[in-house]
């Protein structure tokens, strides 16, 4: 028993020493005991131009700022005041997809389904920044010739 504890202890020490070198980190070069300066908050993309989807069924990103007064709660969904079926004529905003008007059994509803109600659970704003780490993800429709 005693030997086992020593073994585990040793392994732990070796592993942690080893792991230390490999923690690459979003923190940058700052030691764990120091508080790095907060990165600048970038401006949210706000030009209303749709982005390409990176893979099939990707929820489209939001090409405008939503921080000002987009209330989405029990009472109100401000996104739907432009994107819902009733309002797209006046707003000319893309309509919420038909799938959002179905419940999980495929039954069509008059209103947006409760499980789709909280828009920003899937749809997110974008900022024009350099990614923190490289990303080699390729979507299903990726074409190596063009890079898209």
């Amino acid at each position, binding site marked *: 028993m005693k030997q086992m504890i020593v073994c585990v202890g040793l392994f732990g020490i070796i592993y942690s020493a080893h792991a230390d070198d490999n923690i690459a980190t979003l923190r940058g070069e700052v030691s764990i005991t120091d508080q790095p300066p907060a990165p600048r908050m970038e401006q949210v993309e706000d030009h*209303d131009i749709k982005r390409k989807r990176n893979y099939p069924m990707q929820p489209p990103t939001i090409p*405008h700022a939503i921080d*000002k*007064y987009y209330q989405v*709660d029990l*009472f*109100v969904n*401000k996104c739907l*005041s432009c994107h819902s079926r009733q309002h797209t004529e006046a*707003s000319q905003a893309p309509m919420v997809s038909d799938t959002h008007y179905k419940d999980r059994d495929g039954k069509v509803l008059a209103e947006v389904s409760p499980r789709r109600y909280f828009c920003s659970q899937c749809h997110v704003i974008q900022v024009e920044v350099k990614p923190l780490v490289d990303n080699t993800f390729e979507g299903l429709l990726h074409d190596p010739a063009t890079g898209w």
Partner: protein
Amino acid sequence: MIEWVKRQVTVLRAPSRYFSLGFLTIGGFIAGVIFWGGFNTVLEATNTETFCISCHEMRNNVFQELKTTIHYTNRSGVRATCPDCHVPHNWTDKIARKTQATKEVWGKIFGTIRTREKFLEKRLELAKHEWARLKTNNSLECRNCHDFEYMDFTRQGVRAEKAHSTQLARGEKTCIDCHKGIAHKLPNMAGVENF
């Protein structure tokens, strides 16, 4: 005692018999200044944010919501306080609104929105009052700062420019028609027209 009161009444009924005309004129003028000054000072004191949020109903509900919006904090530091939007700036309109607000004193005394639950329950009704007021006066309190004459559409976003240069410009719609819930959260909007 009764004699004394009787004497005062006699003097008040015909003061010019007992006091000189000069004393009455100048005295009346000074008394008027003090009275009017006092009235106006109190009126202005009740027209501040500090006064509004001295009640927990305002401080814990609507004021907390305002704090997250652009009318409270923004890049240039210009901000709106409660009376900027909720009390007309013009004197006669202000007095009319202040008189109406005596109903709110009643509400305070009897605690109509004393708790968060009571407030949420009554919120739609209260909001409707404000929407109706702004609709009737063509969003006057918005326009005290946001003057349409000086709006530069070329500096606006695509969507904003489209709405402002058409329906707002033609006077078909007023600010509050679209900009509901910009400084406070919205109540349950089910059944509200055009929402």
